[in-house]
């Protein structure tokens, strides 16, 4: 949380006004009982009258002992309208000022809170779009999204609440104590027995209940796990006829959860009644003390009675501020966790630094790619994922990469747009080390089609046009044509203007992939990379697409990473990777003879007859 406080800095002026306002509101709360006690003390008075036998009437006297002379003494309560009006208007004034301050406080705290959240979100978003994909992949998309929405919200809410409450609690606590002290030290004794008692009580309950709540959370997770397993595995469970067993497993977990929940709830059940009892006991204690004081003759007038009335109200304020503090403490850990999760992202440092110079911005690249003794390991790994990678890809050539999962074929192509930086060796495009080219310029050279096609919400047109600013209709159509997408697009009612939903859910995997290929094609890049980018296509479309590519992309360098032998058989160069090393480069026929790994892969997919 501390690290996020700097986001308050631009609003320091507003924050300090907030503090002033909080103080005003708190003082207002404290003043009202004080004035009320003044009204009782000064506005109301006793009027004694003593029987004067001479005039045969009751006359006003300074004092008269009614108890001793009930027949000759009379006492009446008088109220002084002017005094009451005076203090009454004070109270009205205080109320007005503190309410206005309160309203202003609400506005400013909402304002600062929402801007605090806005600024965090802004930096967070910036961070995600600037750090390298490697860093964000370490987290995973779903948690990054939750952090941006829920966690920021959590922190922002806490901040808004803290601005409104946090300062108010100590002011009210200390202020009320001082006011109460001033009125009567004796009368406050019950309060200062009650305060530690309340604190001890809260601490005890927390000690008892916090581990239980943690256990509850664990049991809920367990229950969720068991339920999720039986939902996701429903086919297997039914196939094996194990439904009853799964239900039993669930019920056991449910009993566990219920018992822990019950126990925690039982302890919590004591909290409320005890706190109530304590509040009442303190107030009763004040009253009792007052009673003792009356008996002892130290509380003798309306001033004293006013004090009792005020101190009872202060007692409530004091005890209540402790409860509020507890609530804040309960909320804090949650906000703290969220803050930590946000800071974790904000503190990411990109492993990719744009070191390029402008000199290549307008350079006429041809697309010749050269790997010279390239090795690569992930930033915090020890073992190289790639070793000794050497090859040259010339414009017009199709280079295929094949190998089993984990062989590093995908990593090789991800080095080119600098999603990762090579750890040793040289990676050159037209003889220029790619680090010398500005990231933007470099990536502009490349048309990349990833395995999972991601579309943006919009239209088909906007999705294909994403690849090129101000793309014309013809360019879009042409790209779609080559990508074998024009067929299904034209079949749709609205053609190129058909809506694409978020994530492209209204398209099949193959359609999405073709659109994503079209998006890369429209850039007419010097280097094409299909990172398993044909995987969702059926065999026929795959083949048609490849032949269309061959015709249309004659001058570019094309990299194809694939699982299917059929997809790459006709490549100009096939690079066979195994455990991060190149174990064979050549054409299909050569590799069948020279590379064991290649033959193994080919055999497993094709069978003896087809290969020969």
């Amino acid at each position, binding site marked *: 949380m501390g690290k996020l406080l700097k986001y308050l800095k631009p609003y320091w002026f507003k924050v300090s006004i907030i503090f002033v306002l909080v103080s005003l509101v708190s003082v207002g709360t404290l003043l009202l009982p004080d004035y*009320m006690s003044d009204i009782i003390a000064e*506005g109301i008075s*006793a009027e004694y009258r003593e029987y004067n036998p001479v005039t045969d009437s009751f006359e006003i006297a300074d004092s008269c002992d009614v*108890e001793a002379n009930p027949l000759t003494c009379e006492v009446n*309560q008088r109220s002084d309208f002017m005094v009451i*009006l005076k203090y*009454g208007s004070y*109270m009205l004034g205080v*109320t007005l000022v503190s*309410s206005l301050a*309160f309203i202003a406080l609400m506005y400013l705290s*909402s304002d600062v*809170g929402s801007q605090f*959240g*806005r600024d965090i979100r802004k930096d967070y*978003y*910036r961070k*995600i*779009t*600037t750090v390298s*994909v490697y860093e*964000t992949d370490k987290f995973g*998309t779903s948690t990054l*999204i939750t952090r941006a929405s829920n966690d920021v*919200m959590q922190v922002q809410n806490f901040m808004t609440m803290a601005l409104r409450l946090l300062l108010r609690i100590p002011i009210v606590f200390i202020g009320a104590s001082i006011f109460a002290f001033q009125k009567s030290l004796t009368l406050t004794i019950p309060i200062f027995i009650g305060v530690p008692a309340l604190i001890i009580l809260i601490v005890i309950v927390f000690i008892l209940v916090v581990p239980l709540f943690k256990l509850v959370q664990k049991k809920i997770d367990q229950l*969720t796990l068991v*339920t999720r397993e*039986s*939902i996701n*595995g429903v*086919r297997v469970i039914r*196939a*094996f*006829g194990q439904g009853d067993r799964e239900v039993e497993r*669930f019920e056991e977990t449910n*009993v566990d959860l219920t018992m822990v929940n019950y126990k925690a709830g039982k302890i*919590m059940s004591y909290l409320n*009644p005890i706190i109530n009892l304590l509040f009442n*006991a303190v107030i*009763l204690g004040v009253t009792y003390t*007052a009673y003792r004081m*009356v008996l002892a003759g130290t509380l003798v*007038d309306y001033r004293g*009675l006013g004090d*009792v*009335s005020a101190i009872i109200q202060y007692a409530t304020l004091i005890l209540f501020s402790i409860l509020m503090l507890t609530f804040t403490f309960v909320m804090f850990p949650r906000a703290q966790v969220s803050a930590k999760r946000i800071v974790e992202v904000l503190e990411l440092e990109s492993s990719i630094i744009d070191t390029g110079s402008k000199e290549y911005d307008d350079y006429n690249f041809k697309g010749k790619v050269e790997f010279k003794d390239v090795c690569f390991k992930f930033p915090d790994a020890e073992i190289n994922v790639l070793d000794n990678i050497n090859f040259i890809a010339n414009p017009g050539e199709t280079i295929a990469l094949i190998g089993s*999962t984990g062989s590093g074929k995908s990593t090789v192509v991800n080095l080119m747009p600098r*999603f990762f930086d090579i750890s040793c060796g040289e990676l050159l495009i037209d003889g220029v080390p790619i680090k010398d080219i500005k990231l*933007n310029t470099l990536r502009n050279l490349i048309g990349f089609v990833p395995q999972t096609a*991601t579309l943006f919400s919009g239209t088909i047109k906007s999705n294909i046009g*994403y690849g090129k600013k101000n793309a014309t209709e013809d360019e879009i159509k042409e790209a779609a044509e080559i990508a074998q997408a024009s067929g299904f697009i034209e079949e749709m009612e609205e053609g190129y203007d058909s809506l694409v939903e978020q994530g492209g859910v209204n398209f099949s995997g*193959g359609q999405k992939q073709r659109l994503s290929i079209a*998006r890369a094609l429209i850039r007419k890049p010097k280097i094409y990379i299909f990172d398993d980018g044909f995987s969702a296509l059926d*065999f*026929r479309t*795959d*083949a048609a697409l490849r032949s269309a590519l061959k015709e249309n992309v004659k001058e570019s360098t094309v990299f194809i990473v694939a699982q299917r032998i*059929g997809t790459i058989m006709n490549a100009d160069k096939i690079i066979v990777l195994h455990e991060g090393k190149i174990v064979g480069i050549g054409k299909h026929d050569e590799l069948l003879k020279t590379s064991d790994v290649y033959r193994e892969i080919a055999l*497993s*997919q094709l069978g003896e007859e087809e290969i020969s």
Partner: protein
Amino acid sequence: MKDNLDKEQKQNTSQKAPRQRGHGPGAGMPLGRPAEKAKDFKGTTKRLIKYIGQYKWQMLLVIIVTIIVTLLAVVAPNYSRFIINDLQGMILGTITRDEGVARITTYFFLVLGLYALRFIMSLIMHLVGNKVSIFIGKKMRNDLRDKLEKLPIKYFDSKQTGNILSVFTNDVDVVTNSIQQSLINIISSFFSIIGILVMMFIISWKLTIIALLILPLFILATSTIAKKSQSKFIRQQKQLGSLNGHVEEVFSANKIVKLFGKEEESFDEFQGINVELAGDMRDAQFLSGLIRPIMEFISNIGYVAVVIVGGILAGATNPLLVGDITIFIMYQRNFVNPILNIANVINQLQSTIAGAERVFEVLDEVEENQEFSKISVDQSRFNGHVEFNNIDFSYSDETELIKNLNLEVLPGKQIAIVGPTGAGKTTLVNLLMRFYEIKAGNILIDGIKSTDYPRAILRKQFGMVLQDTWLFSGTIKENVAYGKPDATDDDIIDACKQAHVHHYIETLPKGYDTVLKEDADNISKGQKQLLTIARAILFDPKILILDEATSSVDTRTESYIQNAMTFMMEGKTSFVIAHRLSTIKKANIILVMNQGMIVEQGDHKELLAKNGVYADLYNSQFLNQPT
């Protein structure tokens, strides 16, 4: 398995986005923010009451005790009033010291007694309430779970796991918490209002009228603000939705954004939404926050009015005493809270009922039709003869998927199913296992209609090894023996040996007792596949259903898996979703599927001779000559 769904189903599932819960910021201050609306508030409430009927006596107890507790809380301060009044009397000398001491002592004991009683009663209230709500939660979860067991696979295919889970946890929680808290809250608030009103009247009807004068003002102000802030919250929620949508889209497409150099553009777009959201948030927060100061202001005006009028009345002929004023003020301050409380609870009840609605929705789902087994089966005599007769099937009524499918598979034969992704290959699995029921025609297994078998018996004849390897969190041993819980250790080890996974298991520190974590990500995908093969081998079914896909497995494990599968298939009728040419060519029958239809069937040679889709596919894949 969900990833493996056929295209048809995917289109069905694609339309349902994960449910958005409208929990805005600052939960716990529900007034002024829109509650989730229940569809049928009345009906669901009635049903909920009926559902918790078995706890009606405990509920009644809670209600009665709550009323007592509330009334005690209202009455007790009245005695404090008497005490303060008597103190005043003693000071002024209107009552004698002895009289005062006697009366005050009595009051003290009375108040103490009342507080003690209140303490005990409220303890009972909370304890019983806690118990009832927690056990209702337990029952609800068990009922939900039992229900799941009776639902057809279709239900699971059409719902997102997360949404089902959220009913089990969130919705049940909301409902049970509310049963305890909202109930106590609303009853005690209601009786507080009445009780306090009565007490105030007893102390001074004139002051009460003064105090009540502010009430309409109060209600008017809060409801106006609440309405205003609700509309702001709706706007904020909308804006938040579009922000989240944007974030989700861009974060998932992070790589693409970077590749196409669109960082600035998407940042600008984001910041546009972000700034607007911040403005909406401020307004919503401010307006909902406004309720408190305004409430306090109005209440304070009432307070001041009461103090002034009270002070004046103190000088009247029938004077108000200090105790009267002090305690009246206390009552007056406590009067507004229950009103706000009721407003809050009503808001809360909306989401409770909406939660209950979702629980009942699950409980109301159409169950798999009951079956009345018409035959007794001697399981050992199965031999795996499968016949499809004039099968019609579709997932939805609109589109026809399989029409008039006929196929006979002799015991021990192999059927390869080929076709592009999403062609409907798993549909056949669904039908064979009776995960889905066919629309017309019938499947005969050993000459008996598959619908005539009890589902459990039928399914036991099949062994499935699918691409999506489902293992549950438990030991390896338990997982392998999943279909045959009474298997001996030797049986298990034998099965694992046959599946070529024994050696691997032995290398694990805890061997067969290794606990697989959730989704079993502590072992590799290939090993998982081998474990599911071992599981199927141990189960020893008559008919096998295999998905050959091994795309994410390294070549070596792949060959293990292939060997294990080949071994397993010997002498068994097997349906193989085939990816390898070697499997396809060896198959006795090849079914070529496309867009959910079986477009061709026959053996390799026949199909090639036909020169149709299969030949096309075969040529384009294997000979690499696009047509």
